[in-house]
């Protein structure tokens, strides 16, 4: 999405569901994909994605174009929610429960079952994920953002709120640890 277009949409999304809808459609696959690569569980990824977008919408009025792009801001919310999940060892989308009963355009449980089946087939990814998830959370953040999401160092720095130099050394330490684990 072009920066100017995104800027205009975010401004309008404060009042207009159409504008929010456009932003949402653009970012949903990216955010869900990122969370799924972090947690490797479709059901949990679905809940964290819901919470991420709810927090985004709750705070969209506060978002200012200063030093951090909208994309990085959204990934930052997702990263914080993932960290919450790992801290508690479980995840329940609490805020969304307060909103009235869900209605889906397809059978949600069937959709999850099918997606889980599809995920099980990605053996190489799952083996790698097993190792990555043993790393400290900040290492997981930088590894997934760099290698799976193909983010630039500057973007990772924005997302995790650290300097570019720190990201480089975190990446170095994370890959070193991972290398040792892989034997």
């Amino acid at each position: 999405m072009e920066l100017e277009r995104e800027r205009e949409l975010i401004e309008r999304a404060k009042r207009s569901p159409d504008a929010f809808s456009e932003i949402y459609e653009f970012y949903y696959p990216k955010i869900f994909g990122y969370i799924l690569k972090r947690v490797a569980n479709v059901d949990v990824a679905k809940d964290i994605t819901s919470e991420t977008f709810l927090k985004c919408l709750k705070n969209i009025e506060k978002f200012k174009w200063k030093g951090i792009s909208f994309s990085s801001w959204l990934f930052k919310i997702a990263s914080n929610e993932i960290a919450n999940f790992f801290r508690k060892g479980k995840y329940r989308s609490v805020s969304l429960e307060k909103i009235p009963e869900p209605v889906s355009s397809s059978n949600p449980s069937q959709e999850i079952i099918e997606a889980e089946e599809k995920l099980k087939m990605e053996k190489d990814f799952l083996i790698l994920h097993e190792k990555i998830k043993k790393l400290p959370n900040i290492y997981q953040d930088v590894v997934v953002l760099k290698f799976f999401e193909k983010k630039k160092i500057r973007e990772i720095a924005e997302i995790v709120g650290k300097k570019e130099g720190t990201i480089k050394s975190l990446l170095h330490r994370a890959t070193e640890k991972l290398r040792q684990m892989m034997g």
Partner: protein
Amino acid sequence: MKKEDLIEKLEKTKLPEIELKGHREWLKIKLIDWKYYRKEAVFEFLPILKRVGFFSGSLVLILLIFFFSTNFLYPKDKIATAQKIALNDPQVKLLIEEGKEIKDVEVINGKAYLLISPKIETEKQTKEFLPMTAEVQEPKENLPTLTEVNLKEKRVSKIEEIKPENFPLNENEEEKAKEIAKIERERIIKIESLPSLELMLKKEKNQIKVEPKEKKALIIYREGNEKWLKKINLQTQEIEETEFLGIEE
């Protein structure tokens, strides 16, 4: 394992590409419903309550809730209800699975009308109906639909396909198109409407009308024994395209 090998592994491992279309659509509706149609209408007034004191503030709030529930919140709540009813209908579910989305909703006389259109995601994607004269007709699954929801009976009562024939050119538009194209009357074989796929709902005299955001005209005409076509944009008053159609037999 060498570090280079690890990095190569990290960069080249096949990653899961999973989509949850149902969740995506459900969450969008839920969030929009929450943000734009429910929360703000009532809770935006809480700071006023603090400022004017609890007792008089409560009175203000009650009056505001009464005002908004009758004038503002009520129809929007109906819109949310209509969307929920529609999304539980198997035919509507199918439309959403085909990649369409709810573009507009209007409520009138106890019925809600939902405009469900194909998503226009890329610049390259066509933004118009296929012309009526096209050899390949519009694939059925690509047509927008107007879904009628009976709010009292809580069910979808009608689903109608919207076709380009629904938006013919009126006399003025035809005249304007001829004028822009600068083609003599006797050379014109046919003029037809080419409405935009971007549609909107309009309330008019207790009725809901579907209207295209933009209308173009296609003029098919003779040039000697050749057949040509011109696409006229009636809004910008420009000729957008000229195409050779073949030799007349």
